[in-house]
């Protein structure tokens, strides 16, 4: 309840005004109803003129409620996690559930893989081999595995040649002189070099060889992994610990059957102490876990493999021209390190060049690439001269105006020597019978919707540049349109 005093003064307010009704007071206090409490002296509120406010200071963010054109297109969703996009791009799909099962497809096995009766047939790869090939990264994203129900390969003429080499190596392993067969796979782009290497790897897995595969030579030399000088090496060499650890892990996974039984027979000098009664598997596991120990572990593994009674070894590499030149790594003088000074590359090249032999026999396979290959004039020259030797044409002359990489020239000098056993294996075009065989496989898988008859096979065979298998697959399965 308001106090009486307050109320009285309220009622007096208007009376006061009427009492002093002078002009001056009227100006001072305008007339209002005596109970109005509104501020009567206020002028009528003026409408604010637009745009009278000062422009915002530079660099100050203002609230912008207008719709901007770009805002609707901006994708505000959650970004994929780091590495996810690349993983998706590099994902290898080996099966297509929509493709039809090919009833006539037979699997390669330990018994039939070396048989020449397979020539011209499409053969399936058994599951353990597929797993092992996946472990050594033999499949590539550019190859068409994702179209078919399961991986299968065509036993083409070159594959049979390769298989015969495997047979030779196995036969010699039984005797006193254990042969190391060395081959470089060459041929046209999309001609099937990588797939032939994969066939070699699968043969080795089936025949229970020990397989070490360098899946992509570019990854060794492009300076994406760490490197360190190797102590006590002269001229100085460099180890790549992370890469070697990765290679060991791939090798361990791929040669599971071998590592199940293998034991350590020798004494090794390792930076890490081995537990007592350790198996070879544990030794490799130590190398994988401690990247610093990976190179000594690799050497120890090699020593174990060199003992008599061990299986034959397949050393394989893909993209040879990357390791036949300077790498991207720099030495202390900021000069490029030659790829042959990297320990892993050195290990491979020594066996490819014949400087070292595989102790229990085996094979060294290197595939060249035509789509991802830096120019290596020395390698090209050596390959050309090997081809000239094969076709008995004139040997090529070295172009004196190109810089020569002497280390590559020396490493591959056996290619120009007809007596030496380093040779090229040229992967050419398919014959029409082979083309027909693989096209029937395409058609049976439901990926080629056409009757496979002579004229159709011939048409596709000629469109594929006289049987280039990559082009054949492209124009019969992929059909770019």
């Amino acid at each position, binding site marked *: 309840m308001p106090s009486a005093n307050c109320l009285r003064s309220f009622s007096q307010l208007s009376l006061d005004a009427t009492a002093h009704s002078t002009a001056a007071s009227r100006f001072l206090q305008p007339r209002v109803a005596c109970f109005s409490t509104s501020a009567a002296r206020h002028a009528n509120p003026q409408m604010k003129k637009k745009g009278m406010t000062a422009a915002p200071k530079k660099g100050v963010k203002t609230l912008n409620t207008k719709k901007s054109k770009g805002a609707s297109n901006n994708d505000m969703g959650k970004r994929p996690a780091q590495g996810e996009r690349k993983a998706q791009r590099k994902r290898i799909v080996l099966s297509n559930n*929509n*493709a039809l099962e090919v009833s006539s497809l037979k699997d390669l096995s330990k018994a039939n893989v070396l048989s020449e009766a397979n020539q011209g047939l499409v053969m399936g790869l058994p599951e353990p081999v597929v797993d092992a090939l996946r472990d050594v990264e033999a499949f590539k994203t550019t190859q068409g595995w994702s179209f078919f129900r399961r991986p299968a390969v065509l036993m083409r003429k070159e594959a049979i040649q390769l298989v015969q080499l495997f047979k030779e190596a196995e036969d010699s392993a039984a005797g006193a002189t254990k042969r190391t067969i060395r081959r470089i796979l060459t041929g046209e782009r999309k001609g099937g070099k990588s797939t032939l290497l994969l066939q070699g790897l699968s043969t080795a897995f089936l025949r229970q060889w020990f397989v070490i595969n360098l899946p992509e030579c570019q990854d060794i030399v492009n300076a994406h992994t760490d490197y360190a000088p190797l102590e006590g090496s002269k001229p100085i060499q460099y180890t790549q610990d992370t890469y070697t650890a990765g290679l060991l892990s791939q090798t361990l996974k791929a040669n599971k059957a071998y590592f199940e039984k293998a034991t350590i027979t020798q004494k090794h000098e390792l930076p890490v102490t081995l537990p007592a009664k350790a198996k070879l598997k544990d030794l490799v596991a130590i190398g994988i876990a401690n990247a610093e120990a990976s190179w000594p572990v690799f050497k120890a593994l090699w020593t174990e493999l060199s003992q008599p009674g061990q299986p034959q070894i397949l050393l394989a590499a893909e993209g040879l021209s990357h390791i036949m030149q300077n790498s991207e790594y720099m030495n202390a003088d900021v000069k490029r390190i030659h790829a042959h000074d990297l320990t892993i590359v050195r290990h491979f090249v020594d066996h490819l060049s014949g400087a070292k032999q595989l102790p229990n026999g085996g094979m060294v396979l290197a595939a060249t690439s035509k789509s991802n290959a830096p120019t290596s004039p020395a390698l090209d020259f050596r390959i050309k001269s090997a081809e000239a030797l094969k076709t008995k044409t004139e040997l090529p002359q070295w172009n004196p105006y190109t810089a020569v990489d002497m280390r590559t020239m020396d490493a591959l000098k056996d290619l120009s020597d007809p007596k030496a056993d380093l040779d090229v294996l040229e992967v050419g075009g398919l014959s029409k019978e082979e083309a027909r065989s693989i096209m029937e496989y395409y058609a049976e898988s439901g990926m080629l919707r056409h009757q496979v008859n002579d*004229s159709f096979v*011939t048409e596709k065979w000629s469109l594929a540049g*006289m049987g280039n298998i990559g082009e054949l697959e492209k124009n019969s399965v992929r*059909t770019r349109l």
Partner: protein
Amino acid sequence: MPPRLNVSAFSRSIAFRPKPQVQWPARSALRMAPSQSRFYADDAPAQDRSHKPSSEPIEHVSEEAAKTAQIMGEKGPDVNQGTPVEDIVKGDKEAQKNLPKVMQDAIKQGNKTPAPKGSRSYSTMMTRSNEGADMGLVDFEAASKLPATPGLKFEAPTLPLPKDGHVKHRYDPVVEQVTNLLMRHGKKSVAQRQMAVTLQYLRTSPIPTINPARPLLPGAPPPSHLPLNPVLYLTLAIDSVAPLLRIKAIKGAAGGGAALQLPNPLSQRQRRRTAIQWILTAASKRRNVGSGKNSLGQRVAQEVISVIEGKSGVWEKRNAIHKLGVAARANIVLPKRR
């Protein structure tokens, strides 16, 4: 004012004419009266020399020869057939001089067949060193044989021609249309690559589940058949969402400056074009999850799959157009029947 009457029609239309007097005067304005003026050519039947033997056209050589032969009691050339020029000028040296060069050469040559020209000293064929000279030409021997039909250099093709027989129309029409609508800045090969990615994605994607609320075209194959035939997959998706009509707005026709909405039927190609553009717009608005240059093709394929599964927003667009079309049906004014 007298009524306008077609006099001649009047006389014709009345079949019953009891009195000839009822007829209008014979000299009607409409009847053609012989003209009073005469032209020069009219008055000279005597000048017509057409029946005179001298004015007859000269007989054809062979006819003449036949007549001569008849007179002489010999057997002349057959008048029913034309005579080749060579026969006419045979033995006439003067006439032979005026013949075209080709015919002169042919006469000189006589019956001998000419030797083939242009045997090159170098080879125009690339051969592989380890294989024979077979270039993969289909039925190479058959082509070199003499064709059965005269006048053809090679054997006639068997009809009907195969679907991909024409180089400019060798792809499926729907695939071609999508490719062309995918193309930006005239880069067709880029569009073709995206198209190939799309078809590849459709081919490897799992079998779609059809939403019964969004029926596909009647007579569509079961969904299990679709991934193995990606072109059919694409065609089915496009044809299923293709609108039947478009709404044409005629400015000011509704009165008061308002536009009159008129439904307008579309041709098959137009319908497909609309559907493809809807699908491509929806695909380009999809989120790009991967990386690399094949992303657009994948998103188009995902959109096609969602169309088939009835999840796509494209169906809404189609339904909206059809609803508008039903409403605008009232605006159609058909021409009156008489």
